[in-house]
């Protein structure tokens, strides 16, 4: 089994509904952000990224919103599908500094049929 998710906040969403997953980041100097998806038994998979000169970026069925004022990032998934069930976490990067990734602890998304 996947023990990484035992202590995670969980979001349960009905199939077909939209999902919103939130992330608060810590470093006001961070200027690049990435969302990863980690399915059970697999490594993290890149979903979408956003630079700090943007406040919104859209991909296929996913949208990332960035609010630098309150240091908040969100991932919106449209028409959530069973295959979206996974742990989602954000990474913040300070490109003017060390380029070190700081990862959030993640949110588990459960899609209900």
């Amino acid at each position, binding site marked *: 089994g996947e*023990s*990484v*998710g*035992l*202590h*995670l906040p969980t979001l349960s969403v009905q199939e077909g509904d939209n999902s919103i997953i939130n992330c608060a980041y810590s470093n006001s100097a961070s200027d690049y952000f*990435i969302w*990863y998806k980690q399915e059970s*038994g*697999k*490594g*993290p*998979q*890149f979903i979408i*990224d956003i630079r700090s000169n943007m406040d919104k970026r859209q991909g296929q069925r996913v949208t990332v919103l960035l609010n630098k004022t309150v240091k908040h990032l969100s991932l919106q998934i449209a028409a959530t599908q069973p295959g979206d069930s996974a742990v989602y*976490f954000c*990474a913040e990067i300070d*490109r003017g500094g060390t*380029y*070190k*990734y700081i*990862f*959030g*602890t*993640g949110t588990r998304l459960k899609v209900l049929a």
Partner: protein
Amino acid sequence: DVKVTQSSRYLVKRTGEKVFLECVQDMDHENMFWYRQDPGLGLRLIYFSYDVKMKEKGDIPEGYSVSREKKERFSLILESASTNQTSMYLCASRQGIKNIQYFGAGTRLSVL
């Protein structure tokens, strides 16, 4: 597609054993990373390497060492495994400092 391959999905070792975790990437990436992932703590950086034969300590290097003799391979070594090193270990690589990190599937290590 970027492919980062970790040699073992599951490992069970005994306390005091020397453990090698291997990671290979096939995209000629310069940078490689080792993380551990524990419940409630997120990913924590153990070691990273910007190029062949180069290595830098991450946030939690104690009890670990690494080796990067070839560009495509980055090995994590537990000199004397302890029970508190039971964890999921993730390897990642990226082309350059400004690019995205791509992860392997992970190695779940249990130290008994």
